């Protein structure tokens, strides 16, 4: 069964540095999402992406964050000038259509030192 894959599984970065989290959605899916989960808290929606543009974003997704689909397979989340509070598990998800179930990747654990 096809899966969403995320790399790396764990990223350790110094505060203030930029980080790029990578995702390969399922190949025939059209809608892409990023969520994050701070330790001990809820999974929170960050952004949805369709047809090469952001379709919705949360208040968390400020100018520090950006998403890109640089080629036909990858979907990336860039976090500029990372802060300690950006430490979290980041999940990528994709769906065939907007009202179809979302399939999640294993997540990337981001640790900011």
């Amino acid at each position, binding site marked *: 069964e096809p899966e969403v894959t995320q790399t790396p599984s764990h990223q350790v970065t110094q505060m203030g540095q930029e980080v790029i989290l990578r995702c390969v959605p399922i190949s025939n899916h059209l809608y892409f*999402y990023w*969520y994050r989960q701070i330790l001990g808290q809820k999974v929170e929606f960050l952004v*949805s992406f369709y047809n090469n543009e952001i379709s*919705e974003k*949360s208040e968390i997704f400020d100018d520090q964050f950006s998403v890109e689909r640089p080629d036909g397979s990858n979907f990336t989340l860039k976090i500029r000038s990372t802060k300690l509070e950006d430490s979290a598990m980041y999940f990528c998800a994709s*769906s065939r259509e*907007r*009202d179809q179930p*979302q399939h999640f*990747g294993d997540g990337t654990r981001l640790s900011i030192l």
Partner: protein
Amino acid sequence: AQRVTQPEKLLSVFKGAPVELKCNYSYSGSPELFWYVQYSRQRLQLLLRHISRESIKGFTADLNKGETSFHLKKPFAQEEDSAMYYCALSGRGAGGTSYGKLTFGQGTILTVHP
């Protein structure tokens, strides 16, 4: 605003006992509700969604709009049901199209003892 509440962080039952994981939601429009499950060291997986009205692995959930609830039930719990369970909501527009984004509850860790 969308909100999902799972009042129990932890739930323990014995094998063969009935189990109910509670989920309440708040949403002014037409909601679509889901249950996702995360087994140990595995990814979040969709367990069921209310519009498909299926029973998956013996679990069922009924959307009660009057009580704004979507509780997950299984009559006879199994040890392999031990996992983290998340209730999630997606809003729907006037035409019935999903907005896509999921709002999750806090999650309930279910432990089924032998």
